[in-house]
């Protein structure tokens, strides 16, 4: 029953709140509930009854015209309408993912370039090439900043265009399939990325023991480059995965045949929201405690063993571990 209320609420959201629209909503809600009740009496399942009620609604444009609202003025902040034309199609979605892939590549590349840019002066430090290292650093930084701005300005309108719109049934199915497919890639990418970041610690450690084999400068530079590669991988898969996953849970417009999951949609979203909120609280608490612990460990270990040279790496590793733990918290709440 509440699914109908939620459905009407979303359709009426773009209308001004006045006695006329309120009356229209009350009347329609009563009609739709009657219809729903009758369909159940006829022996229909809850799911197909909800689907039939939604299909019998009609078009928001007709209603808007009827309530004396011009169709254009509300278009800008118009809510997901019952019109199937407004829904995101599967083609549109694949196109968006293609752009997301480009965006992810550009952002990850930018971060990698930043890492390399710092590695250059670190490696050429106090050598006769020092000046080239510094010039190289600024050059790479400039390219990286350019990439960030370019990627952001190209991608954000693409993303905005899909905001707040429902999906067609096909698109939703595609999103769910893609999410399942990409999940493995995402996990693999994340694990390898984190492993690379951890391995990156080796060169600076080796350099302090085998300084004839690898210099301090080279160790530091290698660390930055290897960690940069790991970060590249992590960023790339995370951005892609997040943009695929968000559509697997988006609302779909009832198509020709209602899908079984529609009936529970309202409740499902509400419980999902509750879980999200809980997860967010837990994550915030975790962050506060976690970084305090990392900081204390850093000073303790550094003082005790006089390892100031490379004990700062704890923050890099700590950053990676934080992501793992946060995703674990989020996943646990999801599965509850």
């Amino acid at each position: 029953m509440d699914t109908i209320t939620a459905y009407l609420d979303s359709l009426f959201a773009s209308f001004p709140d006045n006695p006329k629209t309120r009356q229209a909503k009350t009347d329609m809600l009563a009609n739709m509930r009657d219809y729903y009740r009758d369909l159940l009496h006829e022996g229909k399942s809850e799911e197909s009854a909800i689907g039939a009620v939604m299909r019998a609604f009609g078009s928001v444009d007709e209603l808007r015209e009827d309530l004396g609202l011009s169709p254009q003025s509300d278009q800008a902040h118009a809510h997901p309408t019952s019109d199937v034309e407004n829904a995101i199609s599967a083609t549109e979605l694949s196109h968006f993912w293609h752009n997301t892939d480009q965006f992810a590549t550009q952002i990850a590349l930018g971060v990698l370039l930043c890492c390399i840019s710092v590695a250059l002066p670190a490696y050429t430090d106090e050598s006769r090439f020092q000046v080239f290292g510094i010039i190289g650093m600024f050059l790479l930084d400039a390219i990286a900043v350019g990439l960030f701005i370019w990627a952001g300005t190209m991608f954000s309108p693409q993303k905005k265009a899909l905001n707040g719109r429902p999906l067609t049934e096909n698109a939703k199915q595609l999103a769910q399939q893609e999410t399942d497919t990409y999940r493995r890639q995402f996990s693999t990418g994340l694990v390898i990325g984190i492993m690379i970041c951890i391995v990156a610690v080796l060169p600076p450690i080796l350099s302090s023991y085998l300084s004839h084999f690898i210099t301090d400068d080279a160790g530091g530079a290698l660390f930055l480059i290897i960690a940069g590669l790991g970060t590249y991988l992590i960023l790339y898969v995370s951005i892609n995965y997040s943009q695929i996953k968000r559509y697997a849970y988006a609302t779909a417009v009832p198509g020709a045949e209602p899908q079984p999951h529609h009936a529970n949609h309202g409740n499902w979203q509400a419980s999902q929201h509750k879980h999200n909120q809980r997860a967010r609280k837990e994550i915030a608490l975790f962050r506060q405690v976690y970084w305090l612990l990392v900081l204390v460990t850093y000073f303790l270990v550094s003082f005790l063993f006089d390892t100031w040279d490379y004990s700062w790496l704890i923050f890099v590793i700590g950053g990676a571990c934080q992501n793992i733990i946060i995703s674990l918290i989020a996943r646990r709440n999801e599965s509850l």
Partner: protein
Amino acid sequence: MISSDAMRGYNDALVLAILQQGDSYGYKIGKEIRKRTHDQYMIRETTLYAAFNRLSKNGYIDAYPGDVTNGKPRTYYRITPRGRAFLAVKAEEWHQVKHVVDLFLN
């Protein structure tokens, strides 16, 4: 199943014809249309609402708060003398339209 588009121009007449047999409210009218056409025509919620609005504005029907059904107060509609006159005009028009279209499509 007939589309709303094909019925354009006659939705108002359908509603008036039902109201001529007694006062009624939104859902009951929609259901009556469905029943009489043996599910061949299902008037959409918004189309029905638009028809009520138009008919009220033209003075063909009066809206009044009716008794409570299924725990909700219903807006009932009553046909006015002007509405009856309009329905008669529409019925006459339909006979002509039917005759003319039949000449081509039959």
